[in-house]
């Protein structure tokens, strides 16, 4: 089954590799993937379409959320969202078919972006199924070449973006004593076990709550 995932990702080296690597190592098949910068140049938005067993859908999202560079992973498959794809076609047109091709393009809301004696370059956007139809129609006029962008999507609901606040680092001075791994905050640690608690980020209530600019603007 097709799953539509939207990711907000820190624009760091290797971020794309982590995401595609995770998908392939867990055995999920990528149908399409698009990436581009958001309004905040330190972040990228990715839209990924994967072919996955419906039972594994939430697992995919959870695994994505575990990646340190992923700020938010959202399943758009069943939430209100708009998804579009773009296709660029080069269509060979004879003198006899030129008018018909233009007419068909108009019906599908596609635009001619280049015209030559050999034919046209046409740009079409829409839902993937609509593009499939358009491409089928164009093929009936002869040889074509197609490049598709893969799906991009935007949510119709404003989504709160929950981010973790900064964490203070160790206050111990270098080499003063063999401090425990988790002695960062002042809290006394009676055993190694406390280390994780002491260093855990603040509770969700104290987390930064902000609506991503990239989401609302």
């Amino acid at each position, binding site marked *: 089954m097709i799953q539509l995932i939207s990711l907000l990702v*820190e624009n760091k*080296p*290797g971020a794309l*590799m*982590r995401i595609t*690597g*995770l998908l392939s*190592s867990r055995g999920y098949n990528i149908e399409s993937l698009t990436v581009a910068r958001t309004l905040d140049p330190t972040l990228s938005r990715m839209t990924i379409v994967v072919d996955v067993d419906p039972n594994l859908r*939430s*697992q995919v999202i*959870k*695994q994505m*959320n*575990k*990646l*340190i*560079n*992923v*700020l*938010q992973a959202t399943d758009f498959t069943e939430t209100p969202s708009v998804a579009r794809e773009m296709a660029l076609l080069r269509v060979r047109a004879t003198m006899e078919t030129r008018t018909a091709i233009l007419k068909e393009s108009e019906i599908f809301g596609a635009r001619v972006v280049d015209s030559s004696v050999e034919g046209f370059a046409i740009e079409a956007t829409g839902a993937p199924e609509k593009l499939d139809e358009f491409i089928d129609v164009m093929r009936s006029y002869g040889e074509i070449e197609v490049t598709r962008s893969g799906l991009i999507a935007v949510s119709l609901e404003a989504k709160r973006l*929950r*981010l*973790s*606040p*900064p*964490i*203070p*680092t*160790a206050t*111990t*001075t*270098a*080499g003063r004593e*063999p*401090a*425990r*791994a*988790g*002695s960062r905050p002042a809290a006394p640690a009676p*055993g*190694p*076990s*406390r*280390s*994780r*608690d002491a*260093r*855990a*980020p603040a*509770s*969700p209530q104290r*987390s*930064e709550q902000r609506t991503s600019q990239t989401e609302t603007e």
Partner: protein
Amino acid sequence: MANLMSGARMLLECLAREGVDCFFGYPGGVTIPLYDAVYDHHIRHILVRHEENAAFAASGFARSTGRVGVCCATSGPGATNLVTGLTDSMMDSIPIVAITGQVHSKLIGSDAFQEADTFGITRSCTKHNYLVKDIAELPQVVHEAFYIAASGRPGPVLVDITKDVFQGQAHYAPVSSIHLPGYKVNTEGHTGQIRRAAQMIWDAERPLVYAGGGIVSAGAAPELLELVELVDLPVVCTLMGLGGLSGSHPNFISMPGMHGSYASNMAMTGCDLMIAVGVRFDDRVTGRLSAFAPHAKVIHIDIDPAEIGKNRAPDLPIVGDAKRVLGRVVKVLADLESEMAVRNTEGRKAWWRQIRAWKEEHPLKPALSVDEIKPQHVMFEVDRISNGEAIVASDVGQHQMWTAQFVRFNHPRRWLTSGGLGSMGFGVPAAMGAQVANPGQLVFALVGDGGFQMSLPELSTIAANKLPVKIVILNNGYLGMVRQWQELFFNDRKSAVQLECFPDAEKLAAAYGIAGRTIERPEDLRPALEAAVREPGPYLLNVRVSPYENVYPMVPAGAAINEMVLAPPTPVAVPE
């Protein structure tokens, strides 16, 4: 300008701020500038004999203390040799930080000498990894690496540092905070879910705690003990969870799963409430998943949301730190005690009677013989000496399962084993790391003759650092676990499992300047082990055990865990 320093020195300062007092490594071309800084720094460096063992030693250090273990390797082959150790720590959620050198940033991508794409290679075997090409980023990255390794579900983090960063000079200002906006750890657990969990526990007639490595890594053993004693719950501990509840505690049944005890597996199958804490419903525990715990409602407590519902959909999920969540569950249980404890008392008593009956029906009993040393006999004697207190590192295979079956661990962090990855060659270097971290402790490395020979070079490290590790080789001359499967499932065609020409252990030990002995008579076992423990330095005890012993009970692959094979099948005559 007092704080102008090299990147190498800066790295060591950051390690010191993280409380690192020793690390395991092996130098090479691009890390020479780093080792120049190590030369006169107070952090102790332990020179191993192979990088893989640096990672295993760091893992042994981390497993036995709960602190982050650190290992270091050079670019190219050094870094690729770490991969097995990193994957091992990834599978078992062990916090380690690996530092690797990388070629000069201007040479990256040019197929330079000893260049490898360490960042790409280690993507899938680390919790997170970094490539540092700018000295300005170095302190920040090192502190992030330690934080990521130790917090949440722990794991390995690798920091790949180019040669020019080690060599470069910059002003060092200690980093006061790090910011990882996308790294979310939920420790507390949902209050409503915790309340419901407490109710389900009081309501259950046949409850069972299924405790895993998460108990150990969260330091939740005291909370688990409180929970178990408050409600008188029976407990099974997974391979990774052994010691989470004391092996001597009356409520501890034993390990469940493929080589778990009859009582554990029957209790798993028969329970009506499974309180799963810090576990991942691994295939070696569940057997055929569709037949696993068919009557049970499942409460699943785990810090990693992705574990919840991955293999078994729980009736009540709680995402949180095992220590915090169990502590809160105990509180609610205590509040409800007066009102609810009287429920199901009869049912619970019957459940305990049933469990005891299962235990008596097919107890885990070591096979003993007067003619030859049975491997289980070794475990029995090690257990007698340890009495639940020693640190025991194992390798992987038959002896690992026998250790898990017969050696008790009365505390967490005493049992070091490569559980998820099952990597041979783990035992000796892990014991080495644990001994470095726990100088006064008795540390055993119980290894097979196969795994021992994979980690053989570390005898040199052990001798050089005078680490009093007691290496006990269960020498059956075979890759026992593979042979067992060949016997049972491949018509006894023993293919490539016989390990001939094992060296003379006494001479081998003597060559490294350490004490050693080979024994093969059962009556020698106890005195030889006691002598090994009395020896102030390291000891290599080679025990020739019966070559054809197999591990039982055994759940065949694909079977349900109550479909155990309890004893060896009657021998079938094989036509010549």
